């Protein structure tokens, strides 16, 4: 893992912790961005951790780009021990896979897809050698996922699958991005899943939708009253496949202000996780479902 620094114009420093994705690279970025936040450097205006990189925006009228760069490199050294343990949350996200809305949308953009003759989920099942869509859903929802970045658009989580690399689902992005994606689509591109927080353009393959809003600028939804965005980097997500009647019920419950996401506080240790991935995930699930 080699850290690479670059200026992004005269107002940003972009730091790639590693060229490839791993939880180690994420935690390295988390350690340094935490250190930047704690050191209260004058002139820093945005601290943005990402999957395997991070970005600092600064005001060059307050701190010179060279001084900012020197500060970051100094903080990387002192943060080199690094964080590998966090207090976080595990959150269940219900998913209606193979739903009618993403199906309608993906059919409209077939000419932008690698395989115009199958659906996104059929294609993903095939290129991941999972045989059937049922097996694919089992693989996708069978393990927890780690929120390694929030962004692109307001509150959109990027999710990294918590299994050995050989079992991680990988799918290319659309050949050309779509101009439309239904709100709350569960998508996937490269090794990342995501939940599209708003309707809009997108290039990830579409597998389903969740009835559970994750962004509410009006802050009227009960669990988004305190802050309009649900996810934070470090959150852990467990997908739960649901059928259409349950989807409709949850939508109605959200509208009635009765829906509360299933969510538990949990400590996550990268070392313990890597020592026994399946065993660790089983414990996470037990925490979520309280048995």
């Amino acid at each position, binding site marked *: 893992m080699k850290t690479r620094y670059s200026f992004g114009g005269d107002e940003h420093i972009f730091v790639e912790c590693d060229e490839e994705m791993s939880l180690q690279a994420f935690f390295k970025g988390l350690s340094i961005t935490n250190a930047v936040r704690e050191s209260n450097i004058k002139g820093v205006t945005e601290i943005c951790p990402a*999957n395997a990189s991070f970005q600092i925006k600064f005001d060059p009228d307050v701190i010179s780009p060279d001084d900012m760069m020197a500060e970051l490199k100094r903080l990387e050294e002192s943060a080199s021990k690094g964080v590998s343990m966090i207090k976080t949350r595990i959150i269940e996200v219900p998913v209606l896979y193979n739903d009618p809305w993403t199906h309608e949308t993906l059919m409209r953009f077939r000419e932008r897809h690698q395989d115009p003759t199958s659906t996104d989920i059929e294609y993903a099942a095939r290129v991941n050698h999972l045989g059937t869509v049922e097996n694919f859903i089992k693989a996708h929802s069978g393990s927890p996922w780690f929120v390694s970045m929030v962004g692109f*658009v307001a509150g959109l989580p990027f999710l990294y699958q918590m299994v050995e690399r050989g079992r991680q689902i990988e799918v290319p992005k659309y050949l050309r991005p779509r101009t439309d994606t239904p709100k709350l689509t569960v998508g996937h591109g490269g090794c990342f899943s995501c939940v599209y927080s708003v309707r809009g353009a997108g290039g990830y393959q579409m597998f389903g939708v969740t009835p559970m809003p994750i962004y509410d600028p009006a802050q009227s939804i009960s669990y988004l009253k305190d802050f309009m965005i649900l996810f934070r980097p470090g959150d852990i997500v467990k997908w739960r496949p649901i059928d259409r009647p349950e989807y409709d019920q949850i939508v109605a419950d959200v509208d009635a202000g009765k829906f509360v996401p299933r969510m538990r506080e949990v400590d996550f240790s990268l070392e313990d996780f890597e020592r026994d991935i399946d065993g660790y995930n089983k414990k996470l699930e037990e925490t979520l479902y309280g048995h």
Partner: protein
Amino acid sequence: MAIKVVSPGLSTTVQDLGRPGYYHIGIPLSGAMDRAAMAAANLLVGNEESAAGLEVVFMGPELEFMLPSVVAITGGEIPPKLNGTPCETWTSFAVKAGDVLSFDFLKAGARAYIAIAGGIDVPVVLGSRSTYTLGALGGHQGRKLQTGDILPVGSTPSKARAGRTLDQKLRRQSTSPAELRMLPGLYWHRVTEAAGKHFLSDTWKVAPEADRIGYRFRGGRPIEFMPRTPPFGAGSDPSNIVDACYPYGSIQIPSGTEPIVLHRDAVSGGGYFMVGAVISADMDLIAQLQPHMPARFVAVDMPTALAARKDMNAQAAAVRAVLQL
């Protein structure tokens, strides 16, 4: 005091100088794309620079003032008319109750800024009144204006006065072809030496897909990439990276074909490599580019970028000195 929207124009939004601090969760800065023009319009009517005004794109709205006030219009040349009679730009003027402001066809630039004494008084969301339409956040109901909207206006500041004007030499205008200075970096190492040269020597044209999120350019030669084994998680296309944060002004080139410069409503991150970023001093210029206009990218180093920023700040200080008298 309020303003009634008789017709909304193409895409008129409430903007101020933006909403910093939330980029890490995907909420961009937003605010006027041409910040200098917005700030000047506000100073002309006696507001703080950071008051909320209207950003008008290509085609102006028709607005009816419901009470007397003072108004100024700056930025690109979309000639304004008050009750059908042409009025001065970069100059504050008085309006009476029932007066109607409308606009002629675009003559130059792309975006005009309307400031009104007291500022547009929509609710402050996360520290700003700017509209972020993609996230349906801020501004007037989180969207561009529609016919029939009523915009509240704050109380008139004591400094509001008609007839204030900004000297021609303090109005920044873009040139044609536009020269956008950029600092090479980020993933510049992904392109071949020849492709890097072509990127800088080719003349690009603004594509029709040019908005507050980003400006797309086309017409230059496709970019060739250095060979690589795709890093895990990035995706197989040579232009893919492991999804990362995008700087404002960063220049991404999906599949190596059409560069996109991210602007005030930037998507905060994604999976395309970037060749560098347009310097902060040239971001306002992008706001005034029309589709099909020619543009070139000019590589500069950090000292040049900082000197340009210093000039921009000096210009802003000069505008302040003249208009805050």
